[in-house]
């Protein structure tokens, strides 16, 4: 009887615990989501910190806003869109690809290309000077004479 009772207690407490485990998992996922989102949003008043890192009053307000939007069932993209529509692309740490930001994305490659072209012409110019120029007998004789002096 005693054994049965204690078994029952174990089973009941397990059953009671189960939904709690579920909730714990869910809130952990939620925390993770909030953290990831606020980590890629820039704090407007302390510009080299993300919302997640910042303790500034506005950052706290915006973090709360993110939480609220998540609770309303908004997707990450919708929340990003919400912030961008109010604070501009500036609020994103990862600048989107646009006509205006094209130079930012392609600039380094453009410079690299330019450098490669310059390097190529530099190298081929050098070849002409050392390789294919020929001198007359007299020039060579003068040069040797100068070297021996």
């Amino acid at each position: 009887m005693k054994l049965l009772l204690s078994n029952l207690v174990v089973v009941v407490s397990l059953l009671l615990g189960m939904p709690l485990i579920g909730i714990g998992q869910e809130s952990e996922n939620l925390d993770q989501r909030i953290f990831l989102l606020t980590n890629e949003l820039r704090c407007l008043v302390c510009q080299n910190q993300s919302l997640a890192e910042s303790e500034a009053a506005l950052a706290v307000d915006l973090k709360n806003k993110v939480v609220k939007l998540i609770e309303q069932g908004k997707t990450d993209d919708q929340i990003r869109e919400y912030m961008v529509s109010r604070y501009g692309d500036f609020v994103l740490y990862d600048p989107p690809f646009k006509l205006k930001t094209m130079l930012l994305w392609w600039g380094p490659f453009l410079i690299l290309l330019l450098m490669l072209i310059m390097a190529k012409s530099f190298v081929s110019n050098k070849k002409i000077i050392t390789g294919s120029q020929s001198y007359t007998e007299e020039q060579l004789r003068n040069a040797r004479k100068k070297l021996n002096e």
Partner: protein
Amino acid sequence: MIKYLSPLLVFIVLAGFLAKGLYLNPKEIPSPLIGKKIPDFKLSGLSKESPLVFSDDLLGEPFIINVFASWCGPCLDEHPILIELADTKAIHVFGLNYKDNSSNALNWLEKHGNPYQSIGVDPKGVVAIDFGVYGVPETFLIDSDGFIRFKHVGPLNRETINEIFKILEELPK
């Protein structure tokens, strides 16, 4: 000739970009809200007697929204200019009291003068977030249809007031 001039040219271009960069204000964030309609809001007035303020009630004529707080130093800097603007009676100035204590705000206005024709209270800064506010004071110019035409972050000066009036003149009547 080109060979010798090109480093100079590169230098000039680079110096040009850097010089421009020196004069940019990194704190100034271009607002994506320009040309957009103001968000709907419903705010309680500052004093107990003052009625609720609905965003729709403000429409019909161009008006200015000025975000202020009694705890904000720069708000005091721009205050004389706001008073001056209010005295011209040229435009309705709506004050958005941002994350402030109402009795502090009332005292502040009594002490320094009240340039606002109506005031809405935003104790948690919720409406301010909808307006993309990130630094007080901020000032918006709204046209009669409720579209944001101009935004200024930081204390107003004579130049900004002139700019506001210039935009105001260009607005269709």
